[in-house]
């Protein structure tokens, strides 16, 4: 039987939640293979594993979204069978989803109401929403519609929604993937506070340093099996990663003696009015990016990064051609296709729906960005062999794992799809690559592959612009880092001078408008 006192602290009580031999089978595939996990009150328990290790399946079973094929779930010592999420919620299990379970066209208050049982009036609920968001320092305007909000704000809705049910046990699926260090720190304060209030937290993350800092216990899954339960404080990031991957992760390394060459992407005093009511106005953005160089753009989500990407990629055109210069040619007024023909390539943040058409095959998706300049079209006819070759080449070079040769984009896991998208663009040998959030929600192994690919591309002489909210990532690959705030771009700092503190201040708008700093952090 299980040892009920794994660390001696809990003698005499039973865990808050326990899974015993929990198994979930899809056909022949074992998504979860006999998993035992104990979660105690006042505990932050990390659940670690690569994409496809079975973390999502496990938490879905605990939240009542799927029924386990075998094994059982015990709540406060008693066996329970959850008919669905509402029963899980009524027992005190809350969940914050990785792919936010929000409704874009509904307001914040309506979204929160949908996550509650509806016993209180909408007005009372709205009042309580404001109170809870204030208590935990998670400011929200209940009347705004979700499509207008930044990723960080959307996550706040999820967390507040979960907190309003006063859960005893809260599941968080990669909550910091999209947050700035300051936002993440704020979240940790909230989590520590929840722990002090006697709640238990199951914390899924890829960020091992974060897990070491925050979590009391860590359970590691690999290939649907539990590998180990340990105290992450006593492990190193490397030893945790080894357990997750079952081997060493390749270290990302820049080639020595990388030379910067001619300016390949120049932005001159780019200003652009927003194209929607709540967009960000780009104001006087200027930078110069040379071949062989990687420029990182940091910043809290929703400070104009999306607008800058649209202006660079040609999704939005500028009246003045000179604002964007690609390979020495004024391109501000040129379409995406024409910019691609100049040698530029673009990888947007959103993998499904922006980077790829989800229900189309990979080869068709390769064609969608490659038709202009990669010889996939002959006199108006698609060269199917060439598109398939791109898929095969991307698969081979970037280790894209998929079920068949040419599946639908939506069937790939996030990490593998991202490797494909980045690979697709890099195989075109671009002179300029603009990439937004390259490793958002991607597991450590895939992230390392992608970062290495970006470094190699720069080594080969291309200019690379990376927008990311992951400062560690920027520190790892960028030569210089600039920060976006309220549509303005700071002077780039050399990466060695760009401390977390300095970047954090810039991300809060400090050096631009000192007075607003305190208010802007986390706003």
């Amino acid at each position, binding site marked *: 039987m299980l040892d009920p006192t794994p660390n001696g602290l809990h003698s005499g009580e039973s865990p808050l939640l326990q899974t015993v031999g929990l198994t979930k089978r899809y056909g022949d595939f074992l998504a979860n293979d006999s998993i035992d996990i104990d979660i105690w009150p006042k505990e932050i328990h990390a659940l670690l594993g690569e994409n496809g290790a079975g973390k999502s399946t496990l938490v879905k079973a605990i939240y009542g979204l799927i029924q386990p094929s075998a094994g059982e779930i015990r709540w406060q010592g008693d066996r329970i069978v959850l008919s669905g999420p509402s029963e899980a919620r009524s027992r005190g299990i809350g969940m914050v989803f990785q792919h936010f*379970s929000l*409704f874009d*066209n509904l307001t914040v208050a309506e979204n929160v109401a949908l*996550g509650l049982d509806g016993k209180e009036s909408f007005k009372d609920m709205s009042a309580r929403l404001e109170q809870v968001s204030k208590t935990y320092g998670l400011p929200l305007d209940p009347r705004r519609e979700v499509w207008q909000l930044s990723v960080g704000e959307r996550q706040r809705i999820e967390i507040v929604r979960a907190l309003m049910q006063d859960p005893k046990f809260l599941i968080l699926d990669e909550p910091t993937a999209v947050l700035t260090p300051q936002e993440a720190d704020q979240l940790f304060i909230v989590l520590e506070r929840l722990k002090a209030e006697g709640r238990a937290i199951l914390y899924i993350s890829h960020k091992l340093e974060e897990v070491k800092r925050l979590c009391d216990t860590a359970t590691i899954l690999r290939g649907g099996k539990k590998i180990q339960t340990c105290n992450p404080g006593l492990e190193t990031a490397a030893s945790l990663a080894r357990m997750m991957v079952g081997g060493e992760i390749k270290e990302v390394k820049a080639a020595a003696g990388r030379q910067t060459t001619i300016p390949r992407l120049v932005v001159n005093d780019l200003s652009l009015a927003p194209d929607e009511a709540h967009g960000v106005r780009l104001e006087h953005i200027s930078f110069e990016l040379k071949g062989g160089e990687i420029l990182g753009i940091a910043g809290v989500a929703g400070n104009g990064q999306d607008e800058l990407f649209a202006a660079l990629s040609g999704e939005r055109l500028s009246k003045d051609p000179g604002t964007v210069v690609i390979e020495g040619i004024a391109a501000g007024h040129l379409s995406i296709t024409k910019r691609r023909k100049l040698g530029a390539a673009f990888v947007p943040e959103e993998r499904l729906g922006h980077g790829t058409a989800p229900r189309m095959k990979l080869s068709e998706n390769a064609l969608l960005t490659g038709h202009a300049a990669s010889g996939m079209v002959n006199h108006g006819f698609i060269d199917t062999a060439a598109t398939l070759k791109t898929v095969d080449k991307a698969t081979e070079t970037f280790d894209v794992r998929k079920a068949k040769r040419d599946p639908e984009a939506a069937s790939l896991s996030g990490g593998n799809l991202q490797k494909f998208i980045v690979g697709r663009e890099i195989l075109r040998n671009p002179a300029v690559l603009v990439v937004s959030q390259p490793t958002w929600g991607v597991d450590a192994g895939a992230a390392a592959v992608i970062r290495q690919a970006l470094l190699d591309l720069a080594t080969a002489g291309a200019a690379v612009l990376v927008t990311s909210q992951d400062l560690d990532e920027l520190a790892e690959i960028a030569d210089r880092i600039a920060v976006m705030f309220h549509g303005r771009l700071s002077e780039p700092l050399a990466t060695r001078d760009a401390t977390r503190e300095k970047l954090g201040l810039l991300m809060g708008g400090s050096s631009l408008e000192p007075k607003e700093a305190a208010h802007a952090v986390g706003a």
Partner: protein
Amino acid sequence: MELVEAIILSVLAASTPLLIAATGELVTERAGVLNLGVEGMMIVGAACGFGGAWLTGSIFIGALFGIVAGTLMSLIFALMALGLAVNQVATGLALTILGVGLSGLIGAGFVGERITPATHLHIPGLTDIPLVGRVLFGEDAFVYFSIALIIGVWWFLYRTRAGLILRACGDNHVSAHALGYPVLRIRTLAVMFGGACAGLAGAYLPLAYTPFFIPGMTAGRGWIALALVVFASWRPGRLVIGAYLFGAVTILQLHAQGWGVGIPSQFMSALPYLATVIVLVLLSRARTGGSTAPATLGTVFVPDR
């Protein structure tokens, strides 16, 4: 004066079936289901409604027959499109073809029969007020019901929790499922409501508009109702404007042709469509950003278990 009143009365009569059918489809589409079978459900509703009234002599029972027939038709759609996750567009089109054929079969025995049409309200004094009396206080029950219906639907969608859940299913069925809402059950109910409304709208034609049944008497009204929902950008208020505008221009152009206005009659017949499209497009321009259509409209949802 007499003429103005007569025109307004006929506008209301022409608009009511459109409004009822479109209201039902609006609810269906707000739940994320595109049921293109409105025309088919309407025509079966018309045949069954007339049959019910002819057999029993009661307009009320006729209307009930229409509602039940429309609902049964919509259940076929729900079984196919929701239960078996078949393509919604194909299922809806098939439903219309089925409905047209079925209504001919059901109605074959009634063709040429006549019934006493639905009585109009008469309140002594009020109904006799010149110009507005008959418009406000002299309509048949269907007209009053259609107005209550659209107000009720507005209230349901924007002021009740059930309405919020229904809109949520249309906006993002994956999230709604993740939060534990029975997406397919909610959608089935919405489809049934749409069917009931279409059946009633169909029954209105032989019960109140013209007191007899002829095959194909819906004459494309189901398609117009579908288009109205889109052009009203899925909003009940705009749906009322759209339905009455369409009815008004239809009637006015008939009168205009009667007066001998020197415009080709084909152009005049096209006018209701043109006017409705233009006005509703202008209305929807006012909104910026966000999507107006329910985001999951017409997409198949299969919950993983």
